[in-house]
């Protein structure tokens, strides 16, 4: 199918879906919204796949958008992101059918297909205004979706405000950057921008502005503050769409503007990207490792993964700037592959968390547990996602992190001091991130799903409806496919890299069973590792199977009686060693409330212990800004104190100033 028709399909289905969801009653609404969302996703995938197959598309519609025009261009880079978003949308749409069945709000459901359509169209934008409009439509619709459950929890409102503010701040940076670009280039179509001949200073200003903007969308520290608030508060299919798909558009922006439109740049740009990515990865995973809210944990994990992706892109950009296209293309391919992988497993994980939320009403890991027997399918599927997110073989996250490391460690020969310092640190960051990521997902899976339930809600959990399980199964299958055969994406990635002039260099990875890299002696075979694990495991089971049957026993309670679920290790206690080790960074707050007996202060009635780990970056950076704003408001309020004399005095003063200025500038 041609890309143009696929995009028309996206728009038409989204429009029909939205109208349909508005028109249907509460019973069929989730079905209409879910099916149309999935339909939009299918068309997105079709458009993306066509583009990745080498088709290109470009169209200008001058009748739309006053003061400008609509331009749509789709190349392989756009295609990758269209396909990614479309894929996530298909799964989230299917999931929505069961998830929102009977209680999806009219607004929330009808906006779902529109959100997906906006996201799919963002990478298809071909000029500055079109891009900005679509970008902001996407932001607005996602904001409204985040707010969908505003009546249920007061925290939704705060999350919405934070999200709105941060996304608008990001827009401001992007807007300024792109408009500056367009103005200097003398045209606002991407073609004109690409052909522009600008000074390095201008280009750098543009890049930094744009990076700040896209970075905030991608959840880069310190602009990430909205992400761990908004992603958890949104309904779960929306969380999945935001975390798996929307943040990727930040990556798209960096690639499109940095490597395509600006055509690469000096090395420090990419060093900036690398550092921002590294800091985000580390900070994100640290916060995730101590988070006890499952969806918040997943949100911080998104910051972490986007950090890793941008770290790869940054390193790739650095090498490309040095002329080392082999590593440049490898690292960017690694970043893109990780983006795909992250989309896969984060969709799965957020949907899994949604199922848990739906079944128990809980996001608090400290109160979950025991779901493995109550929601076996969900547990198993979440486990697949957690394995991938922990970047362990045979999960798909492992492959892209492996590629990333390969790219990072091979740059040393022939490098200068900057690279020689940056790369080891980057490897250290990736490694620590990987390690903490493992701990994080062991915690999420181990305390959230295993053992015995820690609350009545968790004990009463029921398995999710079939559509939800099916959607998660699809996501898991996608993860598995990506894990088993990453090399099959080689041609597509090659085509994407061809859209980036300074990086373009043949195909970065190839091979069938074994994943090989071009220009680097390194290989792994995810299939064979999986097969090996399977065979070895089977052997062990078969060999050991003989003998006495398994028996159930009481757990050892140090000689005490049967253990209470309250005595189980919780997520908080699991993360305690990490909290202590990273005390200086996390600065946890402890509250101990001791209630004494009425009769004697030496007898204790109860002890309450609470630990809170706030986002320290947020606490350090944002309150001063808000305080400055309030100060400004307070100062200016004094001008408006109600006295008409003061108002008139202001006028007279203004008049005098104007007269003086007119006199002086004569």
């Amino acid at each position, binding site marked *: 199918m041609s890309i143009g028709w696929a995009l028309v399909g996206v728009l038409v289905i989204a429009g029909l879906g939205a109208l349909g969801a508005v028109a249907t009653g509460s019973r069929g609404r989730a079905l209409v919204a879910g099916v149309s969302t999935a339909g939009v996703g299918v068309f997105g995938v079709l458009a993306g796949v066509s583009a990745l197959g080498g088709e290109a598309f470009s169209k200008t519609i001058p009748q739309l958008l006053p003061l400008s025009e609509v331009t749509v261009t789709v190349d392989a880079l756009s295609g990758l992101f269209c396909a990614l978003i479309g894929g996530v949308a298909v799964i989230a749409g299917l999931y929505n059918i069961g998830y929102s069945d009977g209680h999806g709000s009219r607004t929330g459901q009808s906006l779902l297909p529109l959100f997906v359509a906006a996201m799919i169209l963002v990478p298809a934008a071909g000029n500055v205004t079109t891009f900005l409009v679509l970008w902001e439509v996407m932001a607005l619709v996602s904001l409204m979706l985040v707010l969908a459950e505003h009546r249920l929890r007061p925290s939704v409102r705060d999350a919405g405000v934070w999200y709105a503010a941060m996304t608008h701040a990001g827009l401001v940076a992007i807007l300024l950057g792109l408009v500056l670009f367009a103005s200097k280039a003398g045209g606002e179509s991407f073609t004109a921008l690409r052909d522009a001949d600008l000074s390095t200073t201008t280009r750098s200003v543009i890049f930094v502005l744009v990076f700040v903007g896209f970075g905030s969308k991608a959840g880069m520290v310190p602009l990430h503050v909205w992400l761990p608030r908004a992603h958890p508060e949104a309904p779960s299919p929306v969380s999945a769409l935001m975390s798996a798909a929307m943040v990727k558009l930040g990556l798209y922006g960096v690639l499109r503007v940095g490597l395509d439109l600006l055509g690469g740049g000096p090395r420090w740009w990419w060093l900036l990207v690398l550092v921002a990515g590294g800091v985000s990865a580390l900070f994100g995973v640290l916060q995730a490792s101590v988070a006890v809210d499952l969806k918040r944990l997943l949100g911080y994990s998104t910051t972490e993964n986007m950090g890793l992706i941008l770290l790869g892109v940054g390193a790739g950009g650095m090498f490309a700037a040095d002329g080392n296209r082999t590593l440049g293309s490898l690292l960017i391919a690694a970043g893109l592959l990780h983006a795909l992988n992250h989309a896969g497993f984060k969709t799965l994980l957020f949907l899994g968390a949604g199922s848990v939320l739906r079944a128990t009403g809980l996001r608090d890991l400290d109160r979950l547990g025991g779901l493995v027997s109550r929601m076996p399918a969900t547990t198993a599927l979440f486990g697949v996602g957690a394995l991938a997110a922990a*970047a362990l073989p045979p999960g798909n996250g492992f492959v892209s992190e492996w590629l990333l490391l390969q790219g990072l*460690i091979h740059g040393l020969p022939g490098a200068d001091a900057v690279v020689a310092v940056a790369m080891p640190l980057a490897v250290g960051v990736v490694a620590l991130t990987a390690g903490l990521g*493992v701990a994080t997902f062991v915690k999420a899976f*181990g305390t959230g799903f295993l*053992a015995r339930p820690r609350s009545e809600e968790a004990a009463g959990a029921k398995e999710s409806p079939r559509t939800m399980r099916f959607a998660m199964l699809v996501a898991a299958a996608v993860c598995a496919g990506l894990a088993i055969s990453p090399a099959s994406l080689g041609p597509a990635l090659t085509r994407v890299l061809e859209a980036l002039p300074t990086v373009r260099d043949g195909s970065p990875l190839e091979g069938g069973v074994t994943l090989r890299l071009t220009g680097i002696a390194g290989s792994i*075979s995810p299939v064979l590792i999986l097969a090996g694990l399977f065979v070895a495991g089977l052997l062990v089971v078969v060999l050991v199977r003989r003998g006495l049957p398994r028996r159930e026993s009481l*757990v*050892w309670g140090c000689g005490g009686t049967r253990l209470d679920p309250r005595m189980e*290790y919780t997520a908080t206690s699991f993360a305690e060693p*990490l909290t202590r080790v990273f005390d200086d960074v996390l600065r946890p707050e402890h509250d101990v409330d001791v209630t004494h007996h009425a009769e004697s202060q030496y007898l204790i009635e109860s002890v309450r212990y609470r630990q809170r780990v706030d986002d320290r970056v947020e606490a350090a950076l944002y309150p001063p800004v808000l305080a400055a704003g309030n100060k400004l408001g307070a100062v200016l309020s004094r001008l408006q104190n109600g006295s008409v004399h003061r108002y008139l005095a202001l006028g007279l003063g203004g008049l005098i100033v104007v007269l003086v200025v007119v006199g002086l500038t004569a």
Partner: protein
Amino acid sequence: MSTLGVVVQVVLLIVVAPYLVGVMRQVRARLEGRAGAGAGQPWRDLRKLFRKEPMSPAGSSWVFVAAPAVLVASTLVIAAVSPFVATVSPLDGVADLFAVVALLLLGTVALALAGLDTGTAFGGMGASREMTVAALAEPTILLAGFALSARVGSTNLSAIVERGQQSPGAVLSPATLLAAVALAVVVVAEAGRLPVDNPSTHLELTMIHEAMVLEYAGRDLALVEFASALRLTVLLGLWANLFLPWGVATTASAPALLLGVVAFVAKVAVLGAVLAAGEVFMAKLRLFRVPELLAGSFLFGVLAVSSSFFLA
């Protein structure tokens, strides 16, 4: 013929692993003035355990049951793909240094999940501590790997070993030495040996590894014990071959393989003995001093990488 190398290697490791533990215990016993149970005792223990019935704590799930198998399987895969005896292997391209590290971590994760699945405080405590240590050890491992592979231009284990054989001088380069120290610390941490963990303790508050497996019994416990021995062997073997690559077969001929087997057994035995001897003179660190140790090893890793660049 090279396939034979793989089989030999896997069988060798399976056989040797419990003996290695036995040797180490024996060395330790002797140094402490005890007679010791002999190097074969671990095998005898395993045989006994394999015959006993496995038990699952109430409320635990398939994760608890599957974990030992995953642990053994992941270690076996490492045993198959790494160049312990020979560098020529049909499985050479399957897993490189990073993949091996990740597979080790996979085993750790399986056991940690099992620990959490028991629902006891001990299991959770062990899992939590084990994951903390593993997470903090990760940067050191990868940086040491970086230092080693930077010299060779590949993370492929065979390539690193072969390069070591071809240019013995490089083994004594600052980068390699620093990486060796760094990795040694990590091997100790990963294998759960002193001063990070005490494999023979059963005092709840000091346990890491043992706390996780507290609920295992019978053949489950046998698998866990076996896997832990195998992991120790694999770790020592890897360390030995990365830094002392001599003797590893580079062709698939029978004599070369034989030499490889002998060299491997010797190296691992010596290293095990040294490790055991060292443990006699060492006390376990407080858990919250372990990160300091790992930070130190991380520093060595960084120095290793930068010296491979700045001093090369």
